[in-house]
């Protein structure tokens, strides 16, 4: 609970600061132009630095065969092509399933004592469902937001909006992703707060991103369904940003500046946070390397050259003697 309170307090201070700042007309050009530019710059430089400069410098490790399926062996043993791939295609398949449908979250098993008494390992689907609901909704929301940043509006943004607002509930239409993302984030947060085991291993840095995301979603939803904002003026601001002629039109409500500033904080925070699992998943050695240790020889490229004496050479050397003893030969 202490670490949750720490995160909540830190976040509360941030939110209060943002809310106060958004009220000040004088700060609007900072919140509406300087901060978003700075945040995107920090995001790009930070991610590139961490991926190329830190992670990319680490040598590729020896292939780690700790996957959870039968590796390719003899022809009559069925290999598990996706869990323990031996080819690049299999690796791409495993990575795609991991990135798109979070397959490994199904391994979120718990031990339970069932009547008997019997020890059982029970897989939970809740974490997977909440993670899918959150991440996919987030992606769709970001793609739909491209309606602010493209003129004429990119086709996919209108198409997704039509799909997302399929049920046509209310004016403006309720987006299904808005319900799903609040439910998903809510579950992910409450899980860490109320489950004692999870609370034990949760740090302030686990709660903070959830609070940040939740508040971005809530301010967005408030603007759309409750307060209403001048979307046309916000579009002017957004187009100004991406054409590098920033403008802050008058008459935009302060809630928008809270929304935008929290988004800027999120973008700038990303390279320093656990949210780096986004590029990180692609660089996970247990996910991105084929398990072909036994089929191919992997030589550490910076090893000093080792003088080896292969079996072929050895057989050739003692060919006549082996033959004389009547032992089998590879090359008779």
């Amino acid at each position: 609970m202490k670490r949750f309170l720490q995160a909540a307090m830190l976040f509360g201070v941030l939110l209060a600061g943002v809310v106060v700042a958004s009220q000040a007309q004088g700060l609007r050009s900072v919140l509406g132009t300087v901060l978003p530019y700075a945040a995107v710059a920090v995001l790009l430089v930070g991610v590139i630095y961490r991926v190329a400069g830190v992670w990319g410098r680490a040598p590729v490790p020896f292939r780690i065969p700790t996957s959870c399926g039968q590796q390719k062996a003899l022809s009559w043993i069925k290999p598990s092509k996706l869990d323990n791939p031996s080819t690049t295609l299999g690796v791409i398949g495993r990575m795609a399933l991991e990135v798109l449908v979070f397959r490994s979250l199904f391994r979120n098993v718990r031990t339970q004592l069932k009547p008997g008494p019997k020890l059982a390992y029970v897989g939970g689907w809740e974490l997977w469902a909440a993670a899918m609901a959150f991440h996919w909704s987030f992606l769709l929301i970001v793609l739909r937001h491209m309606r602010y940043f493209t003129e004429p509006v990119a086709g996919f943004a209108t198409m997704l909006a039509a799909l997302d607002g399929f049920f046509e509930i209310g004016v403006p239409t309720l987006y299904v992703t808005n319900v799903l993302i609040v439910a998903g984030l809510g579950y992910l947060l409450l899980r860490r707060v109320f489950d004692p085991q999870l609370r034990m291993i949760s740090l302030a840095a686990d709660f903070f991103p959830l609070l940040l995301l939740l508040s971005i979603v809530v301010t967005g939803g408030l603007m759309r369904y409750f307060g209403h904002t001048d979307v046309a003026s916000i579009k002017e601001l957004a187009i100004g940003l991406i054409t590098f002629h920033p403008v802050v039109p008058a008459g935009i409500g302060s809630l928008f500046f809270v929304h935008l500033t929290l988004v800027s904080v999120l973008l700038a925070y990303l390279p320093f946070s656990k949210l780096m699992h986004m590029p990180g998943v692609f660089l996970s050695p247990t996910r991105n390397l084929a398990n072909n240790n036994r089929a191919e020889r992997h030589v550490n490229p910076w090893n000093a050259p080792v003088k080896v004496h292969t079996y072929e050479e050895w057989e050739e050397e003692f060919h006549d003697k082996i033959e004389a003893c009547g032992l089998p030969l590879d090359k008779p």
Partner: protein
Amino acid sequence: MHDSGKILAGLVVFGALVTFPVWYHAAWGGPLVKPRLPADLAEKECIAPTAYMREHHMELLNSWRAQVVRDGHRSWTGENGRQWRASLTKTCLRCHANKADFCDTCHSSAGVKPVCFDCHVDPKGKN
């Protein structure tokens, strides 16, 4: 071995995605068109303050619809006491007769397609 090629390719894709709006605009972007009023419109004011209309016109229309369809109550009084007939076609589109240049330019740049005109008529439009 650092697999630098693959990492760089991944980062290039990441950078391209983050900056998508910038190069999209450079390639296909056009100017933001402001909604236009008919040139011959005598009225100088909307039925409510302009700032309010920009933010809340959809809500107002929704409440008009509710009051007409559910309560059969067809008149609406503006803040300044002026009486209006609560009607999409007969009120809004009487002043904003140029729906294509007014409602539609704004909506297409905001990426919204109100379904209203599936049923309601735009007297000067094609449908």
